[in-house]
């Protein structure tokens, strides 16, 4: 069905009115209004968890709204499932690709829109059409290879071909560049512009201001589940958008005095490598660096350039996927063959990348989460038995000190807000009196007050003599806290800077592989 035939060109391609959606008591969208003009590239920006993806998934029929209305081409629509949205010409490329690894590119594209004759799929016919589409837009793909064997950029191409194959007029792309190299990114946007010029409407969800500024026609900004602004790109600037995104001046308020590194080494690795799943760039190759006690070393880079693998390798150096040229050293100990527990017992604190899955037992009470990793420490155990009274006493104090709210130890971790979950993890990890601190994305999705608090704690740990490795994809965070900065790109360290010697622009360039 082609909706553009029915209505004139002045109506919006898509309009959302007063959309609301809750997930188990958490408000993901509240009273969202959004208008996308026909034949434009429309940016939807906001921080992680601001509700942009939720709104788009409602538009695509994956989620059902609790309240609100959807208009496509001026007509009110109620989706029972994505198939209704697809029928109206809406298509979506999800952040996590909707591709089944063992099946061919062709089957992944056909799914749900198979050409059928006598009850059988006509793969040949589909293939011919796809080949002509691929030629038209310059998107060649090996149709018969299982998608798990294809690189990420090609997988995204398959996702876009899926939409074109279904005659989608409205293309929604959720964080399309988070997994792409700069070259792939510019190719993608060139293709998107081509599609726009042919009359398609494109919606891009992103949190990268730069992309929004250079590639979109209009922008809608989300913050905490609400729309805080909708502007024409040519009439705005990054600062304004940033303010709309975070609702505050994005000037980080803490002032970090210069470090006084000590001669002793906290972490040292030589030629560390870790294999990722085949075909992906998610791997680490031949990384060498050292962190002295009393300094913060920042690891900057676009997500998915080996950060997760670096963290894995640092904590589990003896795993078989891990290769190393020289010994992995923590505080002058060769830990290459140690298990994680022994490494942690040296006084290694870790703020994990994904706090919900790696940091917490969501269904267990705060007290048990405080115990996690410390269950064999002298403070909380004796002869294999837990010292629960000690745990309660210490946890009560820590919850107070780190301002975890609500205070009760019996609330489950899952009941806490993101910021409080993170504070709980910080409280627990600092319980170790860290000599080494590995902090990954320590303030992701955390409210302003907590960000400052966590930053101050990290700096204090440094000043007390801990060696800190800070892995973050937030440039601001790196530039504020780190004394030295490593740039991770495609699994390699491609640059190293002293904080004083580097500008944001230069850093950004290196992060993009420049």
């Amino acid at each position: 069905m082609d909706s553009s035939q029915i209505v004139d060109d002045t109506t919006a391609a898509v309009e959302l009115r007063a959309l609301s959606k809750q997930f188990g008591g958490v408000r993901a969208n509240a009273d969202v209004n959004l208008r996308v003009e026909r034949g434009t590239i429309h940016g939807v920006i906001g921080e992680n968890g601001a509700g942009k993806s939720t709104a788009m998934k409602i538009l695509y029929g994956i989620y059902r709204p609790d309240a609100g209305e959807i208009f496509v081409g001026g007509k009110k629509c109620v989706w029972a499932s994505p198939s209704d949205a697809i029928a109206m010409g809406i298509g979506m490329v999800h952040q996590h690709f909707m591709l089944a690894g063992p099946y061919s590119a062709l089957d992944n594209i056909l799914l749900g829109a198979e050409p059928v004759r006598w009850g059988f799929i006509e793969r040949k016919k589909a293939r011919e059409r796809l080949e002509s589409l691929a030629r038209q837009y310059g998107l060649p793909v090996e149709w018969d290879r299982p998608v798990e064997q294809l690189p990420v950029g090609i997988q995204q191409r398959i996702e876009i071909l899926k939409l074109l194959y279904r005659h989608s007029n409205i293309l929604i792309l959720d964080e399309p560049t988070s997994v792409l190299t700069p070259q792939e990114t510019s190719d993608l946007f060139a293709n998107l512009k081509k599609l726009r010029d042919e009359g398609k409407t494109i919606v891009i969800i992103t949190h990268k201001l730069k992309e929004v500024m250079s590639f979109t026609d209009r922008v809608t900004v989300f913050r905490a589940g609400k729309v805080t602004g909708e502007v024409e790109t040519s009439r705005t600037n990054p600062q304004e958008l940033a303010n709309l995104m975070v609702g505050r001046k994005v000037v980080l308020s803490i002032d970090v005095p210069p470090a006084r590194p000590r001669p002793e080494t906290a972490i040292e690795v030589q030629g560390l490598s870790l294999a990722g799943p085949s075909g992906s760039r998610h791997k680490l190759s031949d990384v060498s660096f050292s962190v002295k006690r009393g300094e913060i070393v920042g690891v900057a880079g676009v997500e998915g350039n080996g950060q997760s693998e670096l963290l894995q390798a640092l904590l589990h150096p003896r795993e078989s996927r891990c290769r190393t040229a020289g010994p992995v050293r923590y505080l002058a100990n060769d830990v290459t063959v140690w298990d994680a527990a022994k490494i942690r017992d040296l006084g290694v604190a870790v703020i994990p990348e994904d706090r919900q899955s790696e940091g917490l037992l969501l269904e267990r009470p705060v007290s048990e989460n405080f115990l996690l990793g410390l269950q064999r420490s002298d403070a909380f155990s004796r002869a294999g038995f837990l010292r629960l009274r000690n745990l309660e006493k210490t946890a009560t104090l820590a919850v107070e000190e780190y301002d975890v709210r609500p205070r009760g130890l019996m609330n489950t971790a899952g009941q806490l807000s993101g910021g409080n979950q993170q504070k709980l993890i910080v409280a627990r990890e600092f319980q170790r009196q860290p000599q080494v601190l590995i902090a990954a994305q320590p303030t992701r999705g955390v409210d302003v007050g907590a960000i400052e608090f966590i930053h101050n704690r990290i700096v204090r740990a440094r000043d007390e003599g801990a060696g800190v490795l800070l892995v973050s994809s937030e440039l601001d965070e790196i530039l504020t806290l780190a004394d030295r900065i490593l740039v991770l790109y495609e699994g390699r360290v491609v640059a190293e800077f002293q904080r004083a010697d580097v500008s944001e622009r230069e850093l950004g360039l290196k992060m993009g592989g420049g």
Partner: protein
Amino acid sequence: MRKLLQPILAVALGLALGLAVTWIAGESPWHVLKILEKGAFGSGYDFGMTLFYTTPLIFTGLSVAVAFHAGLFNIGAEGQLTVGALAAAVVGAVWSGLSAPLAPVVAVLAALLAGTIWGAIPGWLRARRGSHEVINTIMLNFIAAGLTSYVALYLLKNPDSQNPETRPIGPGYLIHQFGIFGGAPVSAALPLAILAAALVWVLLWRTSLGFEIRAVGQSEPAARAAGIDAGRIRIIAMCLAGGLAGLVGVGEVLGNAGKFKVGFSPEFGFIGIAVALLGRNQPAGILAAALLFGALHKGTADLDFETEHVTRELSLILQALVILSVSADGLWSWMKERRRPVIPETAGGVTC
């Protein structure tokens, strides 16, 4: 409160459905219920038999629960208890001369060890080879059945019997039976089971290892990041699970039959899943649930000759219904949902 209410409701629901079946079969549910009650608790002997069935169910319930806490599904309690019982019987038959204080201890350890090994296999396979324990434990159940019947039929066959069973164990191995149950074989295995329940509670909620087991079950990535070797913990948990199930052999071989009989277990291992579920994987709950299912097992045994149409298989049906009603987490929210008007899912599809 809801924690207690839900299992009770589930039992009530299962029982009601089961009795509805008997009613359809043309038997008064009230009559059936009375037979069940009398069969399970009517006399000292009946109650003794109920306790006799309760004992293995405590062990298998604990076995399933310990694995559950580590995030593992132990469908293999049946196989583990089979090899455990066989091990006790083999030790008792081979070193039949051993005498009282030492003999039962050795046999108990043998049962424990055999069960542990049978549990360790799927634990190791899961931790180190990544193959799923559900399929492996099912397969090991059949392998255990095959191997034990080979031993009972060929290696240690009882020459005095036509039945597939091993030679009797030495007299020094027999453990104490309580006299107050009119001859029902309630032995020292029952206090052993209750002790095991207490120890499991201490382990899970009061020790570092227990915390690690629960942490792995809750979230493997979190446990790993905290320095817990999830694979090792899983192997330990499966060893414990296997050992607990293996102890079923104590009551059967040392406390009752005095030998290993092929097919002695009316699927205690599977009923253990129901016991653990109904007991919410808590030792105290498991004791209560084991007693319930033990009573059910004993009570239904009399149905064959006390009623026209209802057979003892009613116990299986009741167990199945209880498991189903406990299993469906969605059931409770579904029933709530039904009462509340919801936006119709298919409100005419596209209304464009």
